[in-house]
């Protein structure tokens, strides 16, 4: 068995460490790029959302590199993501790709027995003891938390750094070093080192950078290729950005959801505007917009793939939030376009708008 998985932000760090520890063969697909998108659009249903297409591209590249088993998360929620696994299995079958799918889902949807059955399918390929397997999982969780934290720090510090580009440079180097590690322990050491280093970036505390919250559909805000690297761009502009949704957030949220104590702050914040889960992360999107205002952010950017049902609903709610709370919110819809000119125009104009609202006109070129 040679396992692969679709990209979702920093997940590949944790996955690499986990399979390294378990001694299971795996293929990390090349980072999502135009080629993945091209392959994906060729084989996917035309109307399906962008994440589906990029994921298909990831699979095909991995299969070319010998992968025969695909792990993805499932969902029985009301958004199209719930159909991804079935449709994707179907597509790969039609392409004569002989691969197994292992779909991980929450116990409330598929039952605890089925979960053990599916986890067993993976872990039976490992010769390690039960204790070692649990240790491996703990390490992987630690890694995803660490890398997400480092990334979040870098995005935030970018607004305060004295030498522009410091935090971006450090973040990029951190990722390069971490992915070249040979074991989970080595990766944890590297990440700890960078977690320390990021605190040494020279910052100017007097600066009052613009602060923008990134909200919207989880895949398109986490997977940088799909949103044309918006967070990198904001770092270049010297804007502090914050994104609540991340793989580590998802793990925590999913783990706490059976007890209904997940993301209480978001639920509370969104209550006035959207009190129900309507699928995807629409409620989170609205809640985060409210929280962004409360935390003193200057604005929020909502990103979602074209045709995303939950986010269309939140897009319709956000203008009211924006008006009530006096916080500018811009919606960006991503699809197959990789031409960035129009996209950059919108981001720059939004930054201009926020700056002028502060009545301090800065000229950036």
């Amino acid at each position: 068995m040679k396992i692969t998985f679709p990209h979702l932000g920093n997940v590949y760090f944790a996955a690499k460490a986990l399979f390294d520890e378990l001694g299971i063969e795996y293929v990390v697909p090349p980072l999502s790029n135009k080629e993945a998108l091209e392959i994906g659009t060729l084989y996917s249903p035309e109307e399906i959302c962008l994440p589906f297409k990029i994921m298909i591209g990831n699979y095909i590249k991995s299969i070319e590199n010998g992968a025969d088993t695909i792990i993805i998360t499932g969902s029985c929620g009301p958004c199209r993501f719930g159909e991804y696994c079935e449709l994707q299995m179907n597509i790969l079958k039609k392409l004569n790709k002989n691969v197994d799918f292992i779909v991980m889902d929450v116990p409330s949807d598929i039952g605890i027995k089925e979960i053990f059955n599916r986890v067993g399918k993976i872990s039976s390929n490992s010769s390690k003891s039960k204790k070692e397997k649990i240790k491996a999982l703990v390490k992987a969780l630690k890694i995803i938390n660490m890398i997400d934290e480092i990334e979040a720090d870098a995005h935030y510090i970018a607004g305060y750094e004295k030498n522009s580009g410091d935090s971006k440079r450090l973040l990029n180097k951190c990722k390069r070093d971490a992915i070249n590690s040979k074991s989970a322990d080595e990766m944890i050491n590297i990440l700890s080192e960078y977690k320390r280093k990021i605190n040494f970036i020279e910052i100017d505390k007097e600066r009052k950078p613009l602060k923008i919250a990134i909200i919207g559909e989880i895949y398109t805000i986490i997977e940088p290729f799909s949103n044309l690297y918006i967070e990198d761009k904001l770092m270049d502009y010297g804007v502090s950005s914050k994104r609540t949704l991340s793989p580590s957030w998802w793990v925590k949220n999913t783990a706490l959801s059976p007890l209904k104590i997940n993301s209480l702050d978001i639920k509370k914040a969104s209550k006035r505007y959207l009190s129900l889960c309507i699928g995807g992360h629409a409620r989170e999107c609205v809640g985060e917009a409210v929280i962004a205002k409360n935390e003193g952010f200057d604005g929020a950017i909502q990103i979602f793939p074209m045709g995303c049902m939950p986010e269309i609903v939140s897009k319709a709610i956000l203008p009211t939030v924006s008006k009530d709370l006096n916080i500018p919110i811009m919606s960006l819809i991503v699809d197959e376009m990789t031409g960035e000119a129009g996209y950059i125009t919108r981001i720059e104009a939004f930054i201009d708008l926020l700056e002028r609202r502060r009545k301090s006109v800065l000229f950036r070129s």
Partner: protein
Amino acid sequence: MYYLGVDVGSVSTDIVLLDKSLNVVEELYLKTKGRPIQVIQESFKILKSKYDDKQITASGVTGSGRNIASFLIGADAVKNEITAHAVAALNIDKEVSTIIEIGGQDSKIIILRDGIVIDFAMNTVCAAGTGSFLDRQAERLEIPIEEFGDYALRAKSTVRIAGRCAVFAESDMIHKQQLGYKQEDIIKGLCEALVRNYLNNVAKGKEIIQKVFFQGGVAANKGMKAAFENALGFEVCVPAHYNMMGAIGAAILASEAVKKDEGTKFRGFNIAQSNIIASSFECDGCPNRCEVIKLEENGIIIGCFGDRCGKHSGKIAV
């Protein structure tokens, strides 16, 4: 003493020269035709015969081709179209509260209050209702685009055209024309469909209050202006240099920028004679596989852009 403003748009490239008191003294409107570099060179050739490099004290660029243009001409201000349009409109009238701007590929709404942009929106994934679509329809009907609006004004009644998607709008138009509806009525229907689409899509949830400026190339279309006035129920104002507003804004922003910096970065009109070659290649340094654009002037690289890490453009973090 002139301020140069260049707006490299998808359909047209507009160039203006403003005098010290920000009045337009020269305007050039050329079709971009997908060749932004050559068009800038062409226009500089025209300007060179009338003006001297030293007379240009600031230069600003905007439009979707602003990146390439800034390397080429040496710009003091490189700004997005939204800010540029807002600045230009405010320069004419401080009271403007809404700007409807429809260009070749984009349509935008800019909401201003007390002279500050407080909100804006642009068309998202669909280009229906923009200038290039109107261009294409005019071409198909063999009506000069300049007269397109007059046709709409001559219409006695309206034919309903589906305006949500350019492709479907075109089919709808063809179907109705085959049924024998009058051309004028169909064109009026098209204008109304585009306005409906604009108000329901780009301007969704935005409060449009007077004074409204209608600018961008499409503002030349009287049929569109009438359709907007009809839908909004009040007057829509088309400024004198409606199709130059981006360039005017860029020139004004440049004039402000040179006040802070020392001197202009303007490289002179001589680039009109230079041999400029833009080439692109796919960088294989990492899986991002950026399409990098390289700009060479007489064999010397004057700029690289399009790479995400800065390996080629060399400006930011690697």
